[in-house]
Structure formats: structure tokens, C-alpha cells
């Protein structure tokens, strides 16, 4: 792959990526969250089309017109969220789309040997081809996916974070399996955050950062430290406007919170006038923690205390009443009602100021929304415009405006700057500082380490469901945060 570019609207997800993978090697692709790894793999698999650049497979030009096309060329993807039909059997899943048939009738017996052979090769002959995938655990499901790739005679298998949802033992087995694939001459692109894993399984590696290839080399010759530095190294100069603020009383305290299944354990004290950041990998349980605090997910054990109140109610409605608000990481699916107007979205949680006996005074509602539009600099035609017509950054401001309009004291911000342009990011940072100065307590989950260190007063790292100790941001280095997040895998 050479000079591959991909643009999503105003966001340049990939800006000139070069990736060269030798036949029969295990090639690790590493980089921070949002570095462009997943986008790159989508380009390779034909799920999205690149805006620029070329790809070649075995010297022949390759431009997948779609996933089926890519598969025909021997490229198989194994995604984080597995692509299996849970109600079909193992065999049906493995052979999906390439069933042996005669006159449209599926010949099950004919296909059986191939499926069994693949499972045997993967050292999982214990999985019966007639089992329903629904009844298998995550590790076995992954094996089924890999078997599908094998039966399809894939020459290039891409694995995206294959061990992130596995237990230690299953992760071990998977690494052994990757080596067997290599012995068979299959080329593997292995995407992982866990560098120890990479050291053990990969031959060579490529580092992506901010949508660019920044380094490539032999794994054997590189120290984990060096790879981390290449991942973290700063490229964009970012400004973190500092608004002076001071920590006051405890606004939110968590005592050994656990959920189902994540987080496993989180203890934390958040003060008024404080910005506290939570770092960690995607899937470590940070989002789940915020949702449990806000009452969107059940708390299995532990206590959430808001101000002086202990568990006065744990539904989102009750939490909002206690002055706790959540900014969802997923603007489109959860954060905003896209079809509704800006004014409706801003005032949805708190229409009371404009409502008399349930009747909304649209004029006053729109006037209030206009005030927020002006204060946050939301670029739009007016409060009546549907949110779907705004850019990502402006949509995010609408979601933030809702929390401000509600007047919450504790703001839970989940990836508040994801997918918005740099200018909007800086505005979000400044706003967070101003809110802290006004005595609000802010809990931020972010996968972008410079942001955590630049914006927050204290930072804690969550690792596989366990929240570490919160320490002043000045005591952390970027490398420490990344190391802490990726520690001890496999």
C-alpha cells in the first residue's frame, strides 16, 4: 500500500500511509487509538474506498471494489466484533457464501471434511461443526472466523485486536495459532495495542500516528520502549488553553464500583472545580464506568455518592435530578436525536423553564437555544435547524449545550473531542476550563493522551476494568500513560 489517503468530511483519517508486508510474515500494525489503523484495514478489505494511493498484492495492482472482491483475492478480515451468524452452526458459518451445492441444495456431508480439517489444523478439533455459534465462547468464535479464512484459502489474514476480549489462556492459544498460520505460509497483519504480544508473535512492525506511517522495522531489533515513543511522538502542536481553577468540595465519589461485566473495580473522588481524566485502551471499561455512574448500566457492587447524597436513585432521570450529566461518546447513535431541531436537542432534558402545565413556549425555548448557540459559537442557521445538518464539531457543541442548559454540576464527558476538528477541540478544552473555574466537576474519558495530560488536573488509567490511582497530570508522562494502559497483556 502506498500513499493511501482517506478523508471523512473535513477529517483526514489517513494522510499518506505506506505499508509493505512480506509474504508469509506476521506484520504488526501498531498505533494509538484513532491513529488510523482501522480505517487503513477497511481500505484494504474494500469496505471503504481510498481517496488516493495505490495497493498491490503479489505485484499486481489491487483495488477492492468491496469485501467480496477482497475475499476473492485472498484477503480475509477478522474484526474485533466478530462477523458470525449466531443462529447458524459452525459449519454453516465457515462455509457461508461458498456452500457445496447441487441444484441449489446444500450438500452438508460434502463440506464436512474441509471444516473438520480446518478446525483440526487450528488445534480445536473439540469444536463440533454442528454446534450453534451462539453456544460458543469468544475464543471459539474467533477460531470459527479463522477457519472461515482458511477454508476460503486466504493468503492474507488481518486480525484487529484479536486478544482484547480473550482471557489470558485463550490469548496464549491464539498467539500459538498465529504462528501456525505463518508456518502454513499465510501472511498475517496483526493489529494490537499490546506491545508484549507484538514482540512475541510478529516479525516486523509498522507504526501509524495521526494517519501517517511514522516507522517500520524488524520487531527483533526494536525495544518496546522505542516503539512506544514512535507511537506517542507528537506531531500536531496543540494548544490547551489554561483557565485557572481550584478544587473544592467532593462532588462525586465512587467506592469500588463494579458493573456487568465492566468495570471490575473503580474508586475515585472527584472535586468541584476539578478536571479528572481517565485514560486507557478502548474496551478497558471506561465508557462502561461512566454509564454505570449515570445509571444507564447497572452497578453490581460498590457505591456512587453525588455530593452528600448516597444512591438517592440510579436512573438517568434521577442522576440528572442530582445534577449529573453524561456526554455520550456516540453522538449519532445516542448523544443526539439527529432528526430533531437544535432547540429540541438542547432543551430535551430540561424543558421546564419554557413549559407551563406541559405546554412549551416555542419562542422562549428558541430564545434560550439561541443564547447557547451564540455562547458556544455553534455554526447553524438557527435554533429550528435539524441537528443532522450540522458538522461533527457543531453537533458536539449542541450535546454539550444540553448539559449546560440543564445546569449539571458533575459532567461526565466520554471522548468529548472524538471526530471533531482541531479548532473545535480547542474550544471544548477552553470550555472545560471555564466550567471548572465556575465550580463544576468534570470527569473526562479520552483515548488521546496529550489531551489528558494537557487538559486535566489529575489523570487515572483504566486497565482491563480496573481503575488505577488518580495522580496529578504533571506526574505522568505520555509514555507512562500508554505503558500503563497496554501493560501485561498475554
Amino acid at each position: 500500500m502506498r500513499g493511501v489517503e482517506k478523508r471523512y468530511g473535513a477529517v483526514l483519517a489517513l494522510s499518506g500511509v505506506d505499508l509493505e508486508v512480506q509474504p508469509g510474515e506476521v506484520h504488526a500494525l501498531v498505533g494509538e487509538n484513532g491513529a488510523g489503523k482501522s480505517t487503513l484495514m477497511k481500505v484494504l478489505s474494500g469496505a471503504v474506498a481510498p481517496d488516493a494511493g495505490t495497493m498491490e498484492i503479489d505485484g499486481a495492482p489491487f483495488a477492492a471494489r468491496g469485501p467480496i472482491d477482497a475475499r476473492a483475492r485472498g484477503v480475509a478480515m477478522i474484526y474485533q466484533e466478530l462477523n458470525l451468524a449466531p443462529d447458524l452452526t459452525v459449519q454453516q458459518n465457515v462455509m457461508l457464501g461458498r456452500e457445496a451445492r447441487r441444484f441449489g441444495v446444500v450438500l452438508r456431508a460434502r463440506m464436512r471434511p474441509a471444516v473438520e480439517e480446518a478446525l483440526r489444523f487450528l488445534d480445536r478439533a473439540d469444536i463440533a461443526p454442528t454446534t450453534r455459534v451462539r453456544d460458543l465462547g469468544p475464543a471459539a468464535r474467533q477460531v470459527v472466523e479463522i477457519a472461515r479464512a482458511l477454508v476460503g484459502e486466504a493468503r492474507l489474514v488481518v486480525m484487529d485486536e484479536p486478544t482484547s476480549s480473550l482471557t489470558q489462556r485463550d490469548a496464549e492459544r491464539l498467539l500459538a495459532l498465529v504462528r501456525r498460520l505463518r508456518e502454513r505460509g499465510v501472511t498475517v497483519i496483526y493489529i494490537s495495542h499490546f506491545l508484549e504480544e507484538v514482540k512475541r508473535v510478529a516479525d516486523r512492525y509498522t507504526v501509524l500516528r495521526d494517519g501517517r506511517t511514522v516507522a517500520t522495522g524488524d520487531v527483533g531489533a526494536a525495544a518496546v520502549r522505542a516503539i512506544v515513543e514512535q507511537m506517542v511522538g507528537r506531531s500536531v502542536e496543540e494548544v490547551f488553553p489554561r483557565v485557572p481553577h481550584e478544587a473544592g468540595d467532593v462532588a462525586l465519589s465512587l467506592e469500588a464500583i463494579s458493573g456487568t461485566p465492566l468495570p471490575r473495580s473503580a474508586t475515585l473522588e472527584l472535586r468541584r472545580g476539578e478536571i479528572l481524566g481517565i485514560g486507557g485502551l478502548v474496551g478497558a471499561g471506561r465508557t462502561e464506568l461512566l454509564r454505570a455512574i449515570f445509571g444507564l448500566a447497572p452497578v453490581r457492587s460498590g457505591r456512587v455518592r453525588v455530593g452528600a447524597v448516597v444512591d438517592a436513585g440510579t436512573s438517568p432521570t434521577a442522576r440528572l435530578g442530582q445534577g449529573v450529566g453524561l456526554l455520550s461518546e456516540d453522538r449519532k447513535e445516542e448523544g443526539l436525536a439527529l432528526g430533531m431541531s437544535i432547540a429540541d436537542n438542547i432543551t430535551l432534558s430540561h424543558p421546564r423553564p419554557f413549559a407551563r402545565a406541559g405546554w412549551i413556549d416555542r419562542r422562549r425555548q428558541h430564545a434560550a437555544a439561541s443564547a447557547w448557540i451564540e455562547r458556544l459559537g455553534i455554526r447553524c442557521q438557527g435554533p429550528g435547524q435539524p441537528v443532522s445538518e450540522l458538522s461533527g464539531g457543531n453537533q458536539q457543541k449542541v450535546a454539550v449545550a444540553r448539559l449546560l442548559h440543564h445546569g449539571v454540576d458533575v459532567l461526565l464527558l466520554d471522548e468529548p473531542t472524538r471526530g471533531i476538528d482541531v479548532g473545535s477541540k480547542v474550544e471544548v478544552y477552553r470550555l472545560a476550563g471555564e466550567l471548572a473555574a465556575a465550580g463544576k466537576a468534570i470527569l473526562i474519558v479520552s483515548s488521546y493522551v496529550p489531551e489528558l495530560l494537557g487538559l486535566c488536573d489529575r489523570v487515572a488509567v483504566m486497565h482491563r476494568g480496573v481503575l488505577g490511582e488518580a495522580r496529578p497530570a504533571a506526574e505522568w508522562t505520555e509514555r507512562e500513560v500508554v505503558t500503563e494502559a497496554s501493560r501485561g497483556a498475554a
Partner: protein
Amino acid sequence: MARPDAARAARLLSLLGPFLGLVLVVVLFAFLAPGRFLSAYNLATILTQTVIVALGAIGMTFVIVSGGIDLSVGSVVALASVVTAIALREQAHPALAIAAGVATGALFGAVNGGLVTGLGVAPFVVTLGTMGIARGIAKYLAEEQKVDAPASWVAELMSKSPEPSWLLVAPGVWMTLVLAVFFALVLGRTVFGTHTFAVGSNEATARLCGVRVGRTKLLVYLLAGSFAGLAGVMQFARLTVGDPTTAIGKELDVIAAVVIGGASLSGGSGTILGSMIGAFLMAVLANGCTLTGVPTYVQEILVGAIIVAAVAVDRLRRRRAVR
């Protein structure tokens, strides 16, 4: 960001579309059957024929905006007509009989809403079940025959020559009009209406914003049931008997009216005004076809084509809005 003028025009078009369709059909029949079609008497007849579907469509608009569906409307109409007739037969005061009919509908609405929110069963399935249940109970109560009721002023509700004559059209038409205006305001201007839109537009967002999603849905189905009950009372008034086999498939007419009126079956959009235009459009079509001697089957084809056309126009509009 979409071009402002295009976006605004597209939004206007969503109400304009069904309205233009209505005008087109009216002009067509005025041309085909001059005099007879446009007579005051015939217009009053069409309005009266609109009442039952229109009442159902008011409730259905709320349900569809909230992202749900209610298939039990036709059966509930029949059941409510039977209950009203039985109440009158048992010498109940007419007002009480009407209340009994509406309450029957409200009860089924509450059951629908309770099952949808309590068990989390898909509305399609829940109301498919209550559709059968309501029809069965109606037949049981009526002992599988029409229920005769003594003459009362209830029948006046749907009379084509209303008393006093200055009413011009049946009292049921005026009631429908008043209710439509009131509930258009409820949908557009109240917290409940906004929550209905929010639930249908994005349930996760609604939950995030502290909207009591379950309670909102329950109220929506309760409302739809009550309107089906009232439509059942009107059905009784029209037939002057309680008929357990009446209004079979009526729910589809009601849904069609709402969809023609610009609502999306995926929730989050729709207006009462649009639904009323949709209901009226279908009544005009039925009446005009009868007057001009167009066979019923042609009429069915036409209604089907209009539904598909309405949705197709809606899709095109959306695609343009997205771009």
C-alpha cells in the same frame, strides 16, 4: 452543511405533497362527476366518512411518531361499538355508553402499552395479538351477532342531516376537527409531544436525557387506544348497531392515512395535519370512485399506488436532505 433553501423547501414539501395529492384528486373527480361530487351534500358525506379513519389516525400518528405501530385499531373499533351498543341496550345513559366505548379502547391501549414497555415485546407483535383478542371478545360479548340498541342521540353524532341544521355537517365531524387541532398542538407544543418525537427519533438519546421512555410509550398507546374506542363509538353511531365483525382491516387504512400524511414508519416524524389530509384523501377517493362508477378493485389499486408514491416521495426528499 446542507444548503439552507433546499432544506427548508424539502421540509415544506413534506406537508405540501399530500395536500397537492388531495387537490389533484378533488379536481379530478370534480371534472369527472361535475355537480354531484362537489355538492354540499356530498362533501358532508365525505367528511362523515372520514371521521372513523381520522380519529384512529390521530392516535396512530402519536404511535408512529414514537417509532411504534398499533395493529389492534380495527378490532378495538368493533369491540367499542359492541360495548356501546350493549350499554345502551342495558338502558345506560347515552353519555355513559359513549364513555364505556372510549374506556374499552383506553383499556386495550393500556394493555398494548404495558406489554410493549413492560416486556419489551415488539409493538407489531403485541398489537397483532391484541388485535385477535379484541375481535374475539367483541364476538363473545355480542354472541356472534349484531347488537341492536334502542334509538338515542348517539346516532345523531354521525347523522348526515344534523340537528340543528346550522351545524352543516355531523357533530362527529366537528368533534374530530376539534380533537385534531387540540392534539396537533399536543404533539407539536407540549413536553409530552416533544418526548414522543424524541423516543421515536432516538430512544437512546431520550433515555440519556432523562426522558421516562416507558411512561411516554405507555401514554402514547393509551391515547391511541382511546381514539380507537372513540372511533368505535362513531362506528356504532353510523351503523346504529354494535357489529363485532365491522372494521376488519381498518387499522391498515389508518396506518395508510398517517403514512400518506408524511410520517415515517421508522419513527421521529409525522404531523396530525398530514394524517388528516391522508384520511380525507382516502375518503375522497372512495367516494369519487363510487360516484363515477369506478369498480372497487380499481379503487383498491389506486389507494395502494398512492401509499407507495407517498413513501417514495418521502424517500427522495430525505435523500436530498442528507446530501
